[in-house]
């Protein structure tokens, strides 16, 4: 046992020493959406570009175009000696499980999914916590007591957004009514602004005056519909307040860019660690966006209430139920 510990310690020292001394050769495999999807993949891209500008270290990249290429791209990166390698999105998990076993000395980071292997770092987010905060803001901004939610593809991850949002709304206004719609059941639901706009308008017709979109590119249509109808919309993933100043109440920020940046940065410093990283409010992995574009929409009372909820969630006084813990939204 003791010998093993020493060996492990030595290995660690050698690994970190090597990583610190030599420059790293980072790489990223984007998913089907491509790096300019205005949403998830682009967030990663922005984080990596920041790293490249700061350190001057270039990275390899690949955008997959079919199912089989995920595994191929990850393996090619590893074969080329790239390290660390970021796999973007939950859909890459099965491919990464295979490749990470074949290349135990290569460090992999997967974002938005957990792959439990000794050389894989899994970064997941507590989207329910951030959604709770924008739910509080939505309930306080609503005059009708009715708010809406437009999801992208109907998967557990998006139901997690919806569930956190619902809890936040009811926390601020127990009598509030919430309308929920999913855009579709296929990946095309991430990029269907027309349908997103229609769903938002139908929710406005039923009396909603704030709508939260967790739908990737589909959200663009939701925000436009809110602007056209003079209602409020809430953005997602990156800070989208600037899109329509005056009708964007706030954005639920999910810092995939920070996660991507940190992966390369920690690998460079030698502090990269395998295992699961769960980024919530406490880690600033999720949050709500307040900037010059929406300052006029956020009242002092609203800000105080949201910040209070934020503090309470971090302190553990408010427990936000995670849909994916038991695949239900009973709390």
């Amino acid at each position, binding site marked *: 046992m003791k010998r093993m510990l020493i060996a492990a310690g030595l290995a660690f020292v050698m690994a970190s020493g090597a990583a610190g001394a030599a420059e790293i050769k980072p790489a990223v495999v984007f998913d089907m959406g*491509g790096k300019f999807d205005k949403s998830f993949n682009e967030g990663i891209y922005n984080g990596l570009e920041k790293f490249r500008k700061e350190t001057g270290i270039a990275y*390899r990249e*690949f955008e997959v175009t079919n199912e*089989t290429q995920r595994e*191929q791209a990850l393996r090619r990166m590893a074969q080329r000696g790239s390290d660390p390698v970021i796999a973007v999105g939950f859909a890459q998990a*099965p491919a990464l499980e295979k490749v990470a076993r074949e290349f135990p000395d290569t460090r992999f980071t997967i974002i938005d*999914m957990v792959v439990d292997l000794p050389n894989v770092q899994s970064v997941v987010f507590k989207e329910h916590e951030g959604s709770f905060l924008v739910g509080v803001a939505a309930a306080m901004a609503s005059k009708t007591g009715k708010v809406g939610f437009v999801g992208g593809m109907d998967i557990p991850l998006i139901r997690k957004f919806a569930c956190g949002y619902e809890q936040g709304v009811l926390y601020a206004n127990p009598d509030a009514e919430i309308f929920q719609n999913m855009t579709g059941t296929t990946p095309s639901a991430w990029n269907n602004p027309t349908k997103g706009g229609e769903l938002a308008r139908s929710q406005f017709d039923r009396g909603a005056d704030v709508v939260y979109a967790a739908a990737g590119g589909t959200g663009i249509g939701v925000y436009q519909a809110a602007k056209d109808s003079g209602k409020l919309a809430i953005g997602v993933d990156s800070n989208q307040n600037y899109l329509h100043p005056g009708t964007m109440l706030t954005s639920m920020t999910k810092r995939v860019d920070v996660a991507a940046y940190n992966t390369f940065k920690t690998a460079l410093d030698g502090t990269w660690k395998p295992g699961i990283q769960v980024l919530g409010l406490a880690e600033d992995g999720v949050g709500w966006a307040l900037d010059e574009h929406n300052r006029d929409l956020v009242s002092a009372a609203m800000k105080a209430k949201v910040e209070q909820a934020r503090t309470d969630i971090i302190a553990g006084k408010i427990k936000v139920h995670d849909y994916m813990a038991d695949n239900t939204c009973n709390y």
Partner: protein
Amino acid sequence: MNEGPARPPRWVGMVLIPLVNLTLALAIAGLIILSIGENPLTALRFLLFGAFGYIEGLGYTLYYTTNFVFTGLAVAVAFRAKLFNIGGEGQAYIGGLGVGLVALAFDDTLPLVLMVPLAIAAAAAFGAAWAYIPAYLQARRGSHIVITTIMFNFIAAALMVYLLVNVLIKPGQMSPESREFAPSAWLPFMHEALGWFGIAMARSPLNLSFLWALVCCVLVWAFIWHTRWGYEIRTVGGNEAAAVYAGIRPTRVIILAMCVSGALAGFVGVNEILGVHHRLLLNFTAGYGFTGIAVALMGRNHPVGILLASLLFGALYQGGAELAFEIPAITRDLVVVIQGLVILFSGALEYMFRPQLERLFTRRGAALPVEG
């Protein structure tokens, strides 16, 4: 021997014209690459090396080739009866569903030697069934096969989404995918199969369904040119009125040709589901059904031509991915442009240089009588 009109030698149409078209497509692609500031020769070298230069790359090329052989043969068989089957994509999708259902039901109980024939039969049956409905509508109701097969692609996609999102999904996961089959039901990879004989080969998705694709080439050749059914199909394709006069019933022939076509397309499911992914998932067809049309056009609807055209497209797919990997300025969209140019020149513009080239060689060569 009859003294017919002077004809060019056959190799002009079969070899020279495709080569000229391919060269032109690559030349234009080279100009585009040049215009974005990259060296086209370097790009071509990466493309060729990525597709054929090392064993793993070759494995990927042949894996794509397998899919294109199946869909190309599917289009060709229908085309011999003058039917334009645009539905290869949907038939492949549903064929994969058949394979997946068989594997999910029997993966624990059946040994591989029984599983493989059963999966092949299921792929054929499901693919043929999906082609049967448009075929019936064409044969009996006169609904145009192009329209109905296109619509059936969408219906197939919607059906698969419904099944995978609501019925077959493994509970508690995000991607709409079924559970993984037990390893006993996996069609062996080529590197595993060669390993049994002590031959080492790098890992790739190439699996034993490649051999089945080669067998299918032979079977289709025999079917079209050496059976009564094939004769009937060719007769209906050549002249439907004459076929009726000869006592052939076109309705039956249309349905037969389309069902064989659908079955061939369904075999994509064997390669993808049983051979590579080992689970049912969405969008595994990835456009192979549509590319099959270009493959069949380029291969002159003949198994040998289709095999060669499939190899070309397999190389373009794999080499293209490699190209995007090696040269960051060449994005995956530019790779699609290159593939599109090859399809454009070998498909749509096929006849551009044909008259000139044929005249050239007719004048030079002797006026050989060629069977029609």
